[in-house]
């Protein structure tokens, strides 16, 4: 009973996924009862999942990062350029991950040192990095044919046992590491307290500025990982990389039950949220409806879930206040 009480949001969102899947399986059995659609999901959803699980920690801290999509493009560019120049995919990946982490850390420093709200600072950085990457690339796509022949590429996005996209395993490992950080490290615990009440966290002696800056660097690392994997999967880098991820990532986080106000959330909830966001489009199209319904249903799902969580939280507060 304790397990159910302590994890009811996670269980609920998992149930929503099961209901949604059952609905699509009934409406479009030819698609949802065949293996090929799941291979597609496993090759595309991980890019959202990786960023969304890291974004969970940012939102739990009471912050927001709207620049991760540009970071994906920028660190993807660093990866593409370094790989091409050096001929080493691994060196390129290391450079891309370092660039992404540094961009994230710069966000964190800007926010903690100047006190500019994250939403404003990261909008600024979004423009800045997108502009930078456009200037560096002249706005043109880079074709990376050499990736197909590199054994390192298989390590990142190959097909395990000939079928399972490796990026799905990377996403799974990343989500597990993020969950471990969140639930079982002092840093993860500090983030919860900072999100709950930043002043109280300071008074408790928690390293508020370092923890906040660190969580942006962690998201930067995740954005870079996602950008690099997407570049490898597509076999080319393009300057608008990351566009379209913003709403999907935030929707995954909020559908998963992370509080809009900070202080609480779960990596599992976000993981399931990203899967829900990933299957909605395929489910709608394969059920015979127009693709125009996709955004409508995405929006409806997000609104329903955040309203539900907000009302549940309000009820809890009412109960607490008698």
């Amino acid at each position, binding site marked *: 009973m304790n397990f159910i009480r302590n994890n009811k949001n996670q269980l609920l969102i998992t149930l929503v996924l099961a209901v949604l899947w059952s609905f699509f399986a009934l409406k479009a059995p030819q698609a949802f009862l065949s293996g090929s659609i799941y291979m597609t999901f496993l090759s595309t959803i991980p890019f959202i999942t990786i960023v969304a699980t890291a974004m969970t920690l940012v939102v739990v801290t009471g912050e927001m990062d709207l620049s991760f999509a540009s970071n994906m493009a920028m660190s993807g560019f660093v990866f593409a350029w370094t790989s091409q120049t050096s001929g080493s995919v691994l060196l390129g990946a290391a450079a891309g991950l370092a660039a992404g982490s540094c961009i994230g850390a710069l966000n964190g420093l800007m926010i903690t040192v100047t006190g500019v709200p994250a939403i404003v600072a990261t909008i600024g950085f979004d423009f800045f990095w997108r502009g930078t990457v456009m200037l560096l690339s002249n706005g043109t796509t880079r074709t990376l044919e050499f990736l197909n022949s590199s054994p390192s590429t298989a390590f990142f996005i190959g097909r395990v046992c000939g079928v399972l996209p490796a990026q799905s395993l990377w996403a799974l490992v990343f989500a597990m590491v993020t969950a471990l950080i969140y639930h079982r*490290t002092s840093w993860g615990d500090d983030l919860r*307290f900072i999100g709950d009440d930043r002043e*109280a966290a300071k008074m408790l002696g928690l390293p508020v500025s370092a923890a906040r800056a660190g969580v942006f660097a962690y998201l930067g690392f995740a954005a870079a990982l996602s950008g690099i994997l997407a570049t490898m999967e597509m076999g080319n880098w393009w300057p608008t990389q990351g566009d379209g991820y913003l709403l999907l990532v935030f929707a995954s986080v909020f559908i998963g039950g992370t509080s809009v106000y900070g202080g609480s959330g779960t990596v599992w909830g976000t993981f399931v949220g990203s899967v829900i966001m990933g299957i909605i489009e395929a489910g709608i199209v394969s059920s015979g409806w127009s693709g125009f319904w996709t955004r409508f249903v995405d929006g409806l799902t997000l609104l329903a879930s955040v309203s539900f969580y907000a009302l549940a939280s309000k009820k809890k507060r009412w109960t607490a206040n008698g």
Partner: protein
Amino acid sequence: MSNILEMRAVRKSFGSVHALRGVDFSLAEGEITALLGDNGAGKSTLAKIISGLYAPTSGQVLIDGAQVTKFSVKHARQLGVETVYQDRALGYSQPLWRNLFAGRHLTNCFGLINAAAEKQAAADIIAQLGLSGAGVSPDTPALLLSGGERQGLAIGRAMHFKARIVILDEPTTALAVGEVEKVLDFMRRVKQEGRSVMVITHSVEHAWRVADRFVVLSHGKIFGEWRRQGLTAGSLLEKLIEAEK
């Protein structure tokens, strides 16, 4: 009783605002000291210096006779100073076990939080505070506790970590009568364990019911200090009114 804390000629300025203007202050072991004064008298600034949140502009702070040279909450905690803030005693969304060990987790050999050990310790603290009967468990979010229970938990945390100086900032403000009783009782228990308690309050009545010594601050200076002997609640109130003139 020996002094565990001494402050000598402590000044604290924020730009042109002088919050403390040369304060000499002390706390003794096994004693409850009430710090009284009007808004802006410097009570909270004094408490925040002892807590490590602020460094004094000048003057000395000594704990056990040794001068404090580093001012941070973490360092103050290491020296045995714990502060319980009225509104900010706990993280409301967090379960009690996380609240009790925030910033000082029990870790396993991999450096990861040992949740099982922390929950067990939290259950023991909850039982010692007599809250188990109220359906409070280590997994209960702080949000679901009453104001008095939250203060109690924060005081329990201080006791668990063997704090020698416990500072309570307006612990009874906005609490119902029954809740005030609980908090005053928690203070008496801390004193019985031989620890030093400093309570900042606007309520002369609440201070009078628990404190052994009363210090009145006015405009950043000590207006006066008195022991309970030879004093009445009425005369204490008169001194407070005089200080505020």
